[in-house]
């Protein structure tokens, strides 16, 4: 089931109409990364992100005892559905559970704002000998990200060339590049090479 072709109104209608296929594909599929991130940020009593999604699913669909309407029924599309779910879930967890401050704030997988500039990553890559570099690349769990790093920082192709070789649009490339870079750097730091 593809939900990328559905707009937020269609998804909301489907969830409210108990369309299990769309509900699962959207909440448990497409939104899994954001629920997983929130799940990992708090000491919830849900063992897995799926359990957290189950709970949020109930939270947004259970009718309020006074208004007799569910939270999802009252969603007015002023923001995206994913954003609403993110804020609602995080507010839910924030009020009920303690935050895993130490784990999350010191984790080695930071986004762009914590990463050195692209040039410094190139410089760091150059410092590694080829054997270390190969080991690091093999430790990258995502082969597509591994290839991106290889092309961009080992073979030193331009961003445009790398995107073309990977068959990506530039928008998709920049998104994947950020993620690949974070994955690569996380491993470098873990191996104390950065």
């Amino acid at each position, binding site marked *: 089931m*593809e939900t990328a072709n559905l707009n937020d109104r269609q998804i909301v209608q489907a969830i409210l109409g108990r369309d299990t296929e769309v509900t699962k594909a959207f909440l448990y*599929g497409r939104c899994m990364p954001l629920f*997983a991130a929130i799940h990992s940020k708090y000491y919830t009593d849900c063992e897995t992100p799926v359990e957290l999604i189950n709970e949020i699913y109930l939270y947004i669909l259970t009718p309020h005892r006074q208004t007799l309407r569910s939270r999802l029924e009252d969603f007015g599309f002023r923001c995206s559905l994913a954003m609403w779910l993110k804020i609602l879930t995080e507010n839910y967890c924030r009020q009920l559970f303690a935050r895993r401050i130490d784990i999350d704030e010191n984790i080695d997988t930071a986004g762009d704002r914590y990463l050195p500039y692209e040039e410094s990553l190139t410089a760091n890559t150059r410092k590694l000998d080829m054997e270390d570099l190969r080991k690091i690349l093999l430790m990258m769990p995502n082969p597509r990200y591994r290839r991106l790093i290889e092309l961009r920082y080992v073979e030193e192709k331009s961003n445009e060339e790398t995107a073309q070789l990977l068959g990506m649009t530039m928008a998709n490339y920049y998104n994947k590049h950020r993620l690949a870079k974070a994955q690569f750097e996380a491993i470098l730091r873990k191996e104390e090479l950065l």
Partner: protein
Amino acid sequence: MINRELLDRFESIDDLPVCEELLGAYIEGRLRGSELREVERLVASDEALQELGGSYPMPTIFSTFLDVFYLDARFLPLADDSSIVSADLNDINLPTIPTIEEIQRMRFGKCTDEKAGPVHKFKQKSNIGDRFNNLT
């Protein structure tokens, strides 16, 4: 299936000074004019709102599994349809959503003055029954 404990938990969640939807619209840059200024003012003075609008990294265990390393407040990481494994989704059983009646029944189990709706209904029923009995 929902239970009384979960229902209590849902009802214990306090409203934010700015509702989730409006905060979301603010983060996504969709607000204008006086509404924008008002939300800006509230966000600036409320730590919870600032935190909810923040970004944070994802731990390795999830980022490796999901290919997502950073939960950016403005550009939420959604999985591609192609990366969603339908077999995994098939294993998921959606929880059953309770009806209003079920919720009221759960409330009825432990009613206080504040939650007197179902008790009131029950008493009315009893009175009618008593009247009927008295007629005979």
